[in-house]
């Protein structure tokens, strides 16, 4: 294994980290496994394609999170809030229905063929890093994703809103009794979670090929990441996402046929060893 392969793992891990932290936030607050998270990621990538085609890739990095945050607000106001007293599994399956619809809507708007996004010019070549020549765009993904993760952690740890989010994910009823406006907190969390998914999609767009199955391909992996990390734990999801990205990439180098079952194996082992996940505090 060489440095380039390790960096590939870190790049995949960074994407998983950004994606799954949003999913974990929504799960922690609403208790809903958002099966539409893969669809949000896919929509982000497709919108990034359209924006970077017409304006520029940098504009896409700004527009996509905003657009997806609006989608998140819609998701919260139309589904999560009115149906919050239903069983969590039912709500999860509603998002599953949304994911099915999104997959088709994307085809209706952008067509079925595979699309490609070109990265900005100065990131197209390779850069020398740690003694290896490595694609500059992938380095940019790693840097941006790590910055986002750091910003998210600081936001959750040092702001009032972050405090309210952490309190509500711990116990939403007690948080409400203590005077936290949990509906407002939830709106913020779902909007930010959706925006992060969109941003991950936009970042991934030049790195992968866009096709309508890309959402589902990642959905199962990030659900696994969230469960492995400890349901509802954002830090756990970040660590598990990075870890899984690196392990899977390294395993692909050693044995491609073994690598495909790595996420499932990881999930089974972790849940048997620690039923609440790595950083698990509770299973509701």
């Amino acid at each position, binding site marked *: 294994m060489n440095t380039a392969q390790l960096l590939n793992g870190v790049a995949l891990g960074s994407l998983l980290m950004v994606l799954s932290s949003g999913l974990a936030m929504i799960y922690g607050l609403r*208790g809903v*496994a958002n099966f539409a998270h893969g669809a949000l990621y896919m929509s982000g990538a497709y919108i990034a394609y359209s924006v970077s085609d017409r304006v520029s890739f940098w504009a896409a990095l700004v527009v996509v999170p905003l657009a997806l945050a609006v989608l998140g607000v819609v998701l919260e106001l139309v*589904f999560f809030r009115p*149906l919050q007293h*239903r*069983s*969590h*599994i*039912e709500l*999860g*399956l*509603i998002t*599953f*229905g*949304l*994911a*099915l*619809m*999104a*997959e*088709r*809507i994307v*085809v209706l708007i952008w067509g079925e063929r595979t699309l490609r996004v070109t990265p900005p010019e100065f990131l197209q070549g390779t850069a020398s890093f740690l003694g290896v020549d490595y694609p500059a765009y992938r380095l940019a993904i790693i840097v941006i994703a790590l910055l986002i993760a750091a910003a998210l952690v600081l936001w959750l740890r040092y702001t009032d809103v972050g405090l309210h989010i952490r309190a509500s994910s711990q116990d939403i009823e007690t948080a409400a009794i203590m005077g936290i406006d949990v509906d407002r907190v939830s709106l913020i969390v779902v909007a930010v979670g959706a925006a992060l998914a969109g941003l991950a999609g936009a970042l991934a767009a030049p790195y992968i090929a866009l096709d309508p199955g890309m959402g*589902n391909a990642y959905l*199962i992996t990030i*659900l*696994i990441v969230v*469960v492995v990390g400890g*349901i509802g734990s954002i830090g756990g999801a970040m660590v598990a996402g990075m870890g899984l990205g690196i392990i899977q990439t390294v395993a692909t180098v050693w044995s491609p*046929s073994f690598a*495909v*079952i790595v*996420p*499932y*194996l990881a*999930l*089974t082992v972790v*849940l*048997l060893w620690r*039923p609440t996940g790595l950083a698990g505090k509770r*299973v*509701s």
Partner: protein
Amino acid sequence: MTTTALPQDDVSPTRTQRPGRYGRGRTTLIGLAAAVGVLLAGLVVPYVVTDTYRMSIVLDATLLSLMAIGIGFLARHLGLISLGHGAFFGVAAFAVGVATTNWGWSPSAAVGFGVVAGTVVALLMGVLVVRASGFGFLMLTLALAQALYAINVQPSMREWTGAHDGKLLSYDRDLTFLGLTQADVMNPGLFWPFAWISLVVCATILWLVGRSRFGTTLEGIRENEERMRFSGYDTFLPRLAAFVLSGAVASLGGALFAINSGYVSPDILGFGKAGDGLIAVLLGGFTLLVGPILGTFLFVYAQANLNFGGNLHLFTGMALIVVLVFMPGGITIGAQKLYHRIRRGRR
């Protein structure tokens, strides 16, 4: 907070027995008589539906219903929502393919082998998953089924299951499935009695199990697992037994499906298939035994007729959302509520 997905409404008198009017034994007898009646009535279907294409749709729905009543049984009695039953259906189907094509077994023996193989997988998976509940259970069943899918499409599996190409069943002309040659078995009208009898018998068995002492234990576990343990019940074995039973029923569906269609696609183990099965169950609703069957028939019918312009998933997703939002408990409970409202209105 419980994550039991069962809507406990006041309008389910069919489930809560009224011992004052009918004895338990008498209701069982009435149920069995009804099952025999339904069984006999169903046998005339090939004479009513003469069109081969339509008949094949009805047959497909019947075989998929076996998987659906398995999923419904777990959901109804344990409150566990499974995304893994496609695995048992698929493993049984592939086992039939391997037994006939690679080993030259007779189709009858192969179907038996398929059911055993699917059930063994259910047992192995069950040991790993039944301790989980709610979302953990859903994820574990999904993940293990996905792992099987990923293993199945490996190039090294080509000799056995055909990897991405799927498995085409071939066996000697003189080998028959309970008297039917390969051409007969693939004729939906001639194969119908096997599928229909299997479905009615399995549904009846699940109904009887649900009403037995064992079924009551399961419901106790569903409502409060911890309290059942405190009351001195073992909660692991009943859950495992229920999981294996529902897996065995799904396996029977898969084995019959393989022998009837003569080809097993790798997609049968995939996420989409498992999702379809679950959606069908939820559309019908699993509070009543007939719910999953009704849902599957509706789903398969809609799939055959609404697939214009490739918009099938759009409609499926919409139907799922509409039913879950406006009709919790599925179509059967929706209809039941409507019926009770009308009756109350008349009085």
